[in-house]
């Protein structure tokens, strides 16, 4: 991918901002220009959370992604809000365990995977975000695989070291998901 303009969106508590940070660090480790911009304020408190991540070979202009070429959505309001804004040719990754709607556009490619139930089944509760990142990586190669593993190692704080293996397992689940 020449440049990634990614929006990740869902509810607060789903790890939206964290997943965006992992994607951003992966870009950084690939020696790319990157930016990460969260939604903040009342929008976040108990409501929707989203963040914009840009990865590019060139300096990033506005870090606010208006028309994403990649989208990860973890709730219905986010799909309704952002699917229409995608550029033609964009790639969407949808948590179908939480969203029963399809993206009604022929000019974007959407992948549906029940990330939240997959996480539950594998003892990875709360890591649907990483499953979705794994899937996005598999479908877009937005970064190198090596950098993605490095990024997750960087982002899981030392005091939660026991979470690192689980995060990696979730990433791998997403990468290997067929369908």
């Amino acid at each position, binding site marked *: 991918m020449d440049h990634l303009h990614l929006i990740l969106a869902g509810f607060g508590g789903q790890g939206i901002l964290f997943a965006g940070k992992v994607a951003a660090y992966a870009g950084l480790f690939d020696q790319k220009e990157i930016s990460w911009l969260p939604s903040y304020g009342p929008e976040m408190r108990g409501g929707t959370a989203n963040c914009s991540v840009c990865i590019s070979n060139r300096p990033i*202009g*506005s870090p606010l992604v208006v028309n994403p070429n990649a989208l990860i959505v973890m709730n219905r309001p986010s799909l309704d809000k952002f699917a229409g804004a995608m550029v033609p040719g964009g790639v969407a990754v949808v948590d179908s365990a939480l969203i029963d709607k399809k993206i009604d556009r022929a000019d974007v490619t959407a992948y549906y995977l029940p990330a939240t139930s997959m996480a539950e089944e594998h003892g990875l509760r709360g890591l649907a975000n990483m499953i979705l990142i794994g899937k996005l990586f598999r479908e877009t190669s937005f970064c190198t695989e090596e950098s993605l593993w490095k990024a997750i190692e960087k982002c899981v704080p030392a005091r939660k070291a026991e979470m690192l293996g689980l995060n990696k397992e979730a990433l791998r689940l997403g990468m290997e998901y067929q369908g």
Partner: protein
Amino acid sequence: MPEKVLMKGNEALAEAAIQAGCRHFFGYPITPQTELAAYMSKRMPKVGGTYLQAESEVAAVNMVLGAAAAGVRAMTSSSSPGISLKTEGISYMAGSDLPALIINVQRGGPGLGGIQPSQADYWQATRATGHGDFQILVFAPSTVQEMVNLVSDAFDLADQYRMPAMILADGMLGQMMEPVALPENSGKTLPEKPWSASGHHGERKHNVVNSLYLTPQALESLIRDRFHRYEVIREKEQRAEEYLTEDADVVLVAYGASSRVARSAVEAARENGIKAGLIRPITLWPYPVDAIERAIPTVKAFLSVEMSMGQMVDDVKLAVNGRRPVYFYGRTGGMIPTPNEVLEEIRKIAGGM
């Protein structure tokens, strides 16, 4: 070169201040600036510094005044409504020739306004950070790395010219993360401040730090001295980035967050065969009039792009002084212009030339 890490603008500002030798922070929480104060509360005790959450913005800025008068590097940070409360203290500091750093992570106004990014405090920062005849240094970073770099410059120049300095950021820059290389603690010694009220130990006359001058002649003479200093600053301290301006027909002028949008629009215009360029003021006071002047001979029109109803455009017009048309495009209230909106404005201007 130190390893690059991802940091939020607010946190990067705080760490950069510590690296620049600031050990006294006085603040009060307000969105979208709070991470700066929160970071300071964690770091300051570890470096032997003072973090103090005051009872109000007015108290915080006056604590900065006191610390600055004692000769230490001191700072405060806030967002728009909080800065309005601090203006009294800033005026007193300017009137007492005190160096200090004030950070404004702007949000929408007036009043409590909103909490989303804005640039509607330009007039306040460059014209009236308080009552009276005075200026402060105003810096406008556009990336997290530049925020880091400008913090130490702002402290140094504030010391050099004995006046307050402001970093005028906004909610976007404060909240976003970008890779930064933090300066290694240079360990450089901070300048001596023989004027400070830091104890004379019976070895010299006591210093007085004060802004009250009841004799009009004395006050006028002091202000005139200060304005001579401002003239030197206008001559020596202007900063701007000029991007693709050499052959540009339309030159955009934008600072901070909106300059990032403007840069994308300039690139899109070039791809569409329109010769556009960008002047990005890095100092807002002194305003980089020399950069505007350099563009005048070749440019056909200027376009000021702001997250306000049009404030910096006044300074563009003053610099252009009627020699070229100056247009304005802005969004306000927390709205961020898109590159496409700005491109449309460039198209209109280019089409009319």
